[in-house]
């Protein structure tokens, strides 16, 4: 495969606590969410029998999903689920090549008429895959398959290819864990070509929502656009152009839309809210300290700065309200050397300290498992131990619950990317 991680950890089983050992040590943390974190960390493969039974007329096949255009998921497998679904509804969005080969992947088998997750021959859990929605395979008026402009999670619609280019990458200042680099090189001389057609997105959303009971929210993310009358104005314009079209098909002023975007200022957020009615907003700090922000996210640090980014999150709460604004931390990327934390515990402490600080301003935090592929700058590193992730996810959730920051828009049902907010349900 072209874009898998390069590093291997042959002795990891002797050096880290296993899934079962973590369950024993952390009995109050959901076994489903711990399993999810471990699958995101280790990846998974399918046995030949599982592949035989993986019916891509029922399930989404990764090779048909346009997420690959965003640079995150590319697989040469002819049959590969784009995500897994556990019994409790926990969604696991990862292709078979997430962190592939760094540690042994879980193995999905087909036993007694059902798919099961196994590890070293032990059956761990039943599993299902993300189902194909009715609109997949239908064409936009321009003749493109709708799934190339609008992808489906189990219960959310994603516009993830609104802009496949990021100006930070264009300046050579992209985030070092980000996989958008190759797309940036491709679109550098013609950034306009990286923008999706809002009309096609509108058509796809209208078609998708004919399937009653399938989708809860619509989420859009895109590469940063720093241009415009002021910083990020052209990005605000892009979201407005897409969502004023989509909004025509909804009633009311509070619409189940989420933007995972650059750190817009207060005036931009008010403008966007008035134009599009979005309930939720996410803008990512990515790492827990200003020093690491400067090293790992140089473009964002230069244009807005770490404290500036935080201030814009606080402003966003004033515009959208508590529970509707959050930020993501790429847990584990802050351990990369030479400048990262030297121990996992230091990273856990820093992430929880930041979470507490932001919670005091009613800003939510979500943390995810860092996925390493060969197209990122940090390709020669690896995501940390399962114990680290268990501490981060349960610690972040405890703080969210303590402060009553219930960011349901990023929970197990609507998003499913962040094990920390999957824990919000209990």
């Amino acid at each position, binding site marked *: 495969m072209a874009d898998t991680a390069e590093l291997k950890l042959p002795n990891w089983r002797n050096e880290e606590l296993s899934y079962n050992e973590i369950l024993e040590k952390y009995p109050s943390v959901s076994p489903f969410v711990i399993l999810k974190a471990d699958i995101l960390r280790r990846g998974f493969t399918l046995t030949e029998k599982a592949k035989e039974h993986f019916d891509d007329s029922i399930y989404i096949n990764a090779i048909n999903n346009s997420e690959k255009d965003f640079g995150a998921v590319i697989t040469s497998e002819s049959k590969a689920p784009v995500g897994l679904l556990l019994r409790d*509804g926990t969604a696991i969005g990862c292709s078979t090549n997430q962190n592939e080969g760094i540690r042994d992947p879980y193995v999905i088998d087909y036993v007694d008429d059902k798919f099961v997750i196994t590890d070293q021959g*032990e059956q761990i*859990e039943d599993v299902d895959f993300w189902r194909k929605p009715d609109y997949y395979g239908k064409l936009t008026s321009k003749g493109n398959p709708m799934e190339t402009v609008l992808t489906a999670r189990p219960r959310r619609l994603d516009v993830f290819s609104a802009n496949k280019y990021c100006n930070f990458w264009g300046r050579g200042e992209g985030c070092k864990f980000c996989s958008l680099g190759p797309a940036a090189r491709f679109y550098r001389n013609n950034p306009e070509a990286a923008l999706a057609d809002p009309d096609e997105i509108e058509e796809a959303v209208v078609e998708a929502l004919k399937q009653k009971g399938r989708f809860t929210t619509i989420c859009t993310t895109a590469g940063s656009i720093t241009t415009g009358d002021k910083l990020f104005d052209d990005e605000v314009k892009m979201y407005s152009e897409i969502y004023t079209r989509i909004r025509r098909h909804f009633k009311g002023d509070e619409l189940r839309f989420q933007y995972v975007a650059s750190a817009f200022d207060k005036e931009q957020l008010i403008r966007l809210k008035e134009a599009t009615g979005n309930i939720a907003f996410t803008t990512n700090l990515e790492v827990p300290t200003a020093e690491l922000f400067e090293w790992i996210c140089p473009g964002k640090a230069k244009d807005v700065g770490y404290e500036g980014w935080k201030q814009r999150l606080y402003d966003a709460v004033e515009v959208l309200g508590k529970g509707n604004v959050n930020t993501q931390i790429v847990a584990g990327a802050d351990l990369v050397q030479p400048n990262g934390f030297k121990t996992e515990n230091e990273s856990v402490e820093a992430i929880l300290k930041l979470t507490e600080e932001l919670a005091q301003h009613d800003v939510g935090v979500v943390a995810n498992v860092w996925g390493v592929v060969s197209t990122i700058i940090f390709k020669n590193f690896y995501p940390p131990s399962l114990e680290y992730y268990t501490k981060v996810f349960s610690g972040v959730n405890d703080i969210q619950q303590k402060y009553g920051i219930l960011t349901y828009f990023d929970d197990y*049902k609507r998003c499913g990317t962040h094990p920390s907010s999957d824990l919000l*349900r209990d």
Partner: protein
Amino acid sequence: MAYPKINKVELSDTVKELLKSKDAIKVLATTDKHGEVHAVFKGSISVNDDGNITLIEVLESSQTNRNLTHAIWFNRHVSVLLKDSAGNSYQIKGIPYADHTVGPEYEEVYRNLTEKNPDADVAGYWEIIPDEVRLETFKERLQEEIETLPILGHADKDFIG
């Protein structure tokens, strides 16, 4: 392992009929992560072709939904109480097996509910594996206690003066 450690019991036809009945009184009792009990009337309680109990939870943020989640995560029991118009009552204990939130079955439940009430939603279509059924009708329970634990109760009951 998160697999429920559960010895499934087969429900009798009488209990299945009662689970499907629209007239029966149906209560769901759950506990939260601190062990606090929470009980609600739940008319949607029914049974599926696999002999598992099903129910619709309409509110994502409800205590019931949280408690059912806690039960599926940590293999905790929930309890279903049924009573028919003749006064016969049953208690069924079980452990949630699945929270269906997607798929054709879920969508059918969603369509049926929202056709009747467009404002309603379906947070989860839960499936519970039963592992204990008790006839809770007073007469039957009294007889059972007299037979199995004759020491209990008051001495004056058999006192003949």
